[in-house]
């Protein structure tokens, strides 16, 4: 609602002439809005010195209150209009119920005039920005008195330019015509790639001369894979030579084991074991044979005994014995 009461946008500030900017702090040019100055007629507070000053004029209605719309309109620019009254919020069709809805577009003459005027303005802006017409502003040279505010570091300079009076300078400011056809000064480059890392060093050039690689050298450079005796989380089978190599690598200094003699020992133990087992089998065989022999002898003895007793029975009368047996049967 109140955005139109806000200060002038900065775009407009561009158009204010330079001469006014220097006079900004003039105490006579303050905005006069106190209620005591109101009277029964419209009063314009305006200083007498310049017409195009930066002063804000205040306009009052006949009853003494501030006329906001005209004041704001005047403050921003002469062409700017402001709707600030209550009347402006009521639609025209409510205010004037018999309003005829007839709002024709502007006539062709008005449009043509407006278009021509605009085209001229635009052409001016374009020619300025593209640097087409050079006669304007080319020879404008202005001089500015500059006094350095820094205390340190200017002592030597002030000695040199004694006549100019301490740290004061007179600067000449003039336009520098830039060649519009020059290539751009700055390159906008995003995400620049870093240089790649240097190639790995080549320790021995084998292809270009030099002694060929010998077997000893190869062996010297051979680095066995690191294999632990204590960790094998994945449970791989590790060939013995690799394990030995790893052990060699790790315990090269304090290996107290004589592999050869240890081998002999184990071989001897194995042989002894084998021999003992052989002897045991032979002995077992013998014992078994003996046992079979003994059993055969026992059987022979029993058979002899049985033969002897049978023979003794036959020596007695046989019928008696047969009768007896028959009797026993019946």
């Amino acid at each position, binding site marked *: *609602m*109140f*955005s*139109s009461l806000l200060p002038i*946008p*900065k*775009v*407009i500030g561009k*158009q204010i002439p330079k001469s006014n900017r220097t006079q900004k702090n003039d105490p006579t040019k303050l905005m006069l809005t106190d209620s005591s100055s109101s009277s029964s007629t419209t009063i314009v507070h305006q200083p007498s010195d310049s017409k195009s000053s930066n002063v804000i004029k205040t306009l009052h209605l006949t009853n003494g209150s501030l006329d906001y719309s005209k004041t704001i309109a005047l403050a921003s*620019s002469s*062409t*700017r*209009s*402001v*709707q600030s009254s209550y009347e*402006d*919020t*009521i*639609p*025209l*069709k409510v205010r004037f119920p018999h309003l005829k*809805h007839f*709002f*024709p*577009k*502007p006539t*062709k003459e*008005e*449009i043509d005039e*407006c*278009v021509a*005027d*605009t*085209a001229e*303005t*635009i052409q001016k*802006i*374009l020619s300025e*920005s*593209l640097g087409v017409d050079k006669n304007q502003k080319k020879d404008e040279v202005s001089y500015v008195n500059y006094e350095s505010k820094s205390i340190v570091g200017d002592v030597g300079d002030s000695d040199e330019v004694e006549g100019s009076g301490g740290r004061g300078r007179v600067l000449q400011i003039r336009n520098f015509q830039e060649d519009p056809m020059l290539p751009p000064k700055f390159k906008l480059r995003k995400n620049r790639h870093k240089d790649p890392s240097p190639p790995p060093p080549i320790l021995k050039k084998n292809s270009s001369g030099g002694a060929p690689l010998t077997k000893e050298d190869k062996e010297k450079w051979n680095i066995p894979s690191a294999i632990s005796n204590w960790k094998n989380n994945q449970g791989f089978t590790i060939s013995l030579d690799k394990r030995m190599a790893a052990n060699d690598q790790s315990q090269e200094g304090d290996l107290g084991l004589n592999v050869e003699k240890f081998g002999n020992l184990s071989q001897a133990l194995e042989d002894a074991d084998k021999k003992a087992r052989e002897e045991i089998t032979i002995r077992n065989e013998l014992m078994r044979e003996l046992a079979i022999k003994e059993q055969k002898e026992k059987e022979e003895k029993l058979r002899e005994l049985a033969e002897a007793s049978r023979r003794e029975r036959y020596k007695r009368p046989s019928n008696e014995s047969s009768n007896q047996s028959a009797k026993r049967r019946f």
Partner: protein
Amino acid sequence: MISYKDIFDLDDTGIIPPVDEKSDTIYRQSQISVIRAEAGEGSDAGKSNNFNFDEGMSEPGVPEYNDAKDKTQITDMVVRKKEEGTGATINPVSRGNSSAEWKLRRVIADAHQGWVRCIDIDPITNKWFVTGGSDATIKVWDLATSQIKATITGHIMGVRSLKVSSRFPYLFSGSEDKTVRCWDLERTNSAAGSQIRDYHGHVGGIYAMDLHPDLDLLVTAGRDSAIRVWDIRSRAQVMVLAGHRSDVTSIQCASSDPQIVSSSMDATIRLWDLRKAATQLTLTHHSKSIRSMLTHPHEATMCSADTGGNFKQWVLPRGDLLNEFNTESDDSKIVNTLSINPVTNSLFAGYDDGKMEFYDYVTGDLLQRTYSKPVPGSADKTTIYASKFDRSGSRFITCEGDKSIKVWAEE
């Protein structure tokens, strides 16, 4: 198996006539009449218009309607002539008759792969239209048959604004990727692509653009709340119009003062003085953000609608409030788009929930309220993002959030 035809009651066989050269010529002739009536006196051959009048007039046996001053009279005559010629391609009863209702005639489902965000109809031949979608493509469609004619790619984010020039064969597009591009429509299908220019400088997405009717100026604005005026030929930025406090949502450019009117999400409308590069007037009557603002094609008035469902009409040179009315519905009150029918002088408002309302532009009376049905398979509500009446006022196209383009016609 349900097809779209079953759901939407699509019956456009009677509307789209077979290709008839005679009716085509008459139709073109009608366009010329309307254009002439707009331009003023009509039969002034020495005018500096770029429209190709000779094409239509050189047809043998086609009478000219350049003596009529009144526009409605012209259109009536054209319609009558058309009926005699081919048999009612446009319903003459609907002209100025408020009881005629707009009905859905055709759905281009999956027209884009995202929301369809903007539309513009060719202002000269009225034979094709362009739409831009969130899928970063621009598509050219035939207005009569709804067949796709070309797909223009190049943007890398959603296309938010489109404008077809009436003085050059150029199409201008603004996108969320902060670029404004100019496409040569005569090279749409070339392998090298049709982009011929781009306008660099915006620091936010471009939501609105318009072309100056007489000068080679392009006016764009959007997310960065600054309006930039470009010289079309040299691609130079002529001026920046600063003053809005939030996203600029629509821009209208005219030949007479105020030459630029802009509406913004900060609930203000600003009228700009192009010659001074300054705000001429700020209208702060709206209390909610304005998503759509439109100047009338024939009158010196404009209409704006905010997200609270308030419509306001203004008289243009001085920005006086002419009329205001509200939507009287309890649904969504967020007006996304406005369109003015240049023939029947009715105002369309498309809402965020798919509600469509047609108002009488003069009185502000509600003529029709309807809802746009979403295409099956999409969400239960569709959003109307953009809309446009064609130049004859007989077709109406909406661009919606269900990725479809819908063509409406009067009963």
